[in-house]
């Protein structure tokens, strides 16, 4: 299965973990796989993972930011926010047999994609004493905007069980068993009482991608959409319901402007949220 000319005695496929603009939380999820971690290292050789080790490859050489490659499976965290990022992700794609993005940043642009809705020059002037030292793009974009991606794992951060499932599926040569249905499915299967119906709590569960196990509703909180949109989310009906649950236009805009702010599915939200103020669009 291995594609690199490594030591002939090591048949394990190679795994690499990459970071772009991100907080490292999704990479750490791999290290959080405590019970499975030793089993994982028997099945794959972790070849490049700067969060874990400063060396890489079978020869344990000093790791390079670009890696030495090639790799069987690359897990990519973070979004593309600089010109260097674009060159590096293309290089990583060329060196990787399978490329899987992990988390909201790599899959949707992350919280840092809020810059897409404003002028990044204004932020630079407000934050940095010497903005001229900062070289950045005006947008934060997902990995899939730059290179072909084999699978996108959702969440901020990703779910540990889903990460193991993706790696396991890759090793077994099958499709990952990850559903695009809504959080409501997971919530009901867990037997959790609906926080919207029973308590009037605003909840994005009906339009949010499953995968977390309905973590927030289990603790009596509304879902805030950290896994991004589910398959075919019905935003008009969801926004109308959030309004009935007491959210203002500003609240509604802001609840969708978090880790998956730049998801194309959320694009109609500002207009939908403003409908009450402006009245329905002319026929």
């Amino acid at each position: 299965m291995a594609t690199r000319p490594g030591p002939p005695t090591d048949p394990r496929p190679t795994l690499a973990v990459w970071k772009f603009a991100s907080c490292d939380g999704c990479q750490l999820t791999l290290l959080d796989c405590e019970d499975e971690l030793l089993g994982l290292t028997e099945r794959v050789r972790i070849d490049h993972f700067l969060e874990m080790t400063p060396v890489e490859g079978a020869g344990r050489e000093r790791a390079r930011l670009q890696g030495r490659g090639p790799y069987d499976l690359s897990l990519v965290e973070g979004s593309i926010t600089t010109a260097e990022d674009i060159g590096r992700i293309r290089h990583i794609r060329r060196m990787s047999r399978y490329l899987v993005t992990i988390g909201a940043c790599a899959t949707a642009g992350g919280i840092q994609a809020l810059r897409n809705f404003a002028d990044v020059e204004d932020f630079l002037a407000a934050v940095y004493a010497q903005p001229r030292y900062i070289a950045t793009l005006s947008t934060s974009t997902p990995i899939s905007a730059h290179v072909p991606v084999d699978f996108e794992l959702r969440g901020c951060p990703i779910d540990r069980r889903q990460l193991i499932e993706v790696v396991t599926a890759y090793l077994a040569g099958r499709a990952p068993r990850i559903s695009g249905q809504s959080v409501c499915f997971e919530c009901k299967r867990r037997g959790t009482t609906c926080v919207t119906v029973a308590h009037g709590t605003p909840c994005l569960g009906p339009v949010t991608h499953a995968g977390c196990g309905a973590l927030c509703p289990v603790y009596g909180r509304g879902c805030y959409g950290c896994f991004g949109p589910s398959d075919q989310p019905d935003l008009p009906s969801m926004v109308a319901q959030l309004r009935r649950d007491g959210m203002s236009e500003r609240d509604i805009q802001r609840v969708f402007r978090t880790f998956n702010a730049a998801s194309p599915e959320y694009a109609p939200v500002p207009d939908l949220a403003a409908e009450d103020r402006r009245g329905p669009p002319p026929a």
Partner: protein
Amino acid sequence: MRADADVDASRPSGPDGLVMGKDGLAALVDVLIRRGFTPVGPTVREGAIVLAELGSADELPYGWGVELEAGRYRLRERADGAAFAHAAGPQSWKPFLHPPRVREWTADRVAGELVVTAERVAPPRYAFLGVRPCDLRAIAVQDRVLTGGAYRDPGYAGRRSGALLIVVECTEPGATCFCVSMGTGPATGPGYDLVMTEVVDADRHRFWVRSGSREGAEILAELPARPADPETRRTARAGVAAAADRMGRSMPETDLRELMARTLDAPRWDDVAGRCLTCGNCTMVCPTCFCTTTEDVTDLTGDHAERWSLWDSCFDLDFSNLHGGPVRASARSRYRQWLTHKLGTWYDQFGSSGCVGCGRCIVWCPVGIDITEEAAALHDWTRSGQPTPEPS
């Protein structure tokens, strides 16, 4: 319950039943536990009256009622201290008889050989305390679906055959209830082991109890109860009869099966599709929806695999995903599939309606879509001079 030919002979009290106080309810839970049952009944949790395992009758929701509306559920306190004066809660008995996740089998590679092991877990013997007549019918509907045809679900059959059903007739319907329209309540139909009717007067809190099976009669004989007086029987019957007149909802008075077949092209389906989130909540809370999907999982070693069955929903895109994509890609087609099956084609498939009138799909729809309102709108459409093609 199991069919007993000599039910009457086993009744210690005759058809008039017995009457007992709150202490009788406490004794009932104790007797169930002593007889090896796992008692399950209503109790207050997470701001709702949910169904959960009971350690004692103290956990019953004494003094709690509910206020129901489309998309809205609220607990409210009751001054009368009644234990069963509440309508359907967030779950039915389905999660106990037809659980959301069930492992079917495991497979292991042992010395190069594949060994498949069927899941064999002895199910607990549940005693369901407080089954509403609508839910009793729902259990019968699922019995037909999961054990009454050519493809029996042995796991369901195992859980079901050991279950003891203690019905409490309905005296406090909710604003979303329509069991009268569906012919399932508020008085009980057959199939129970014990049936109770709760009566709360100014200073007396009592339960009129009758048995419907030998096991029910044996249990009843162990309770601190006395022959039911005519006044208690009369008051109990009157409470149930009054409940029939206080249904918050009703279905249009027409042949619903025919209505579904005649309205497949009604514009109302577009209207409801504009509100439906396709979140699947209605199917999950429905006491008769039975669909499951199958998942095969492997572990990291590749030497161990498991097959799981888990609740699925016709509102999920993957549900109808065939080669080339989902057959029912639009929200319109998915909502229509659910409603026409529930009220119409269920008759063709299983010989009855799939709806028992419990109202859960109305309450637990986050956006408050109302099955009775949708059926009424379709009915109005057929009466407004619209073309009504013959069912094909």
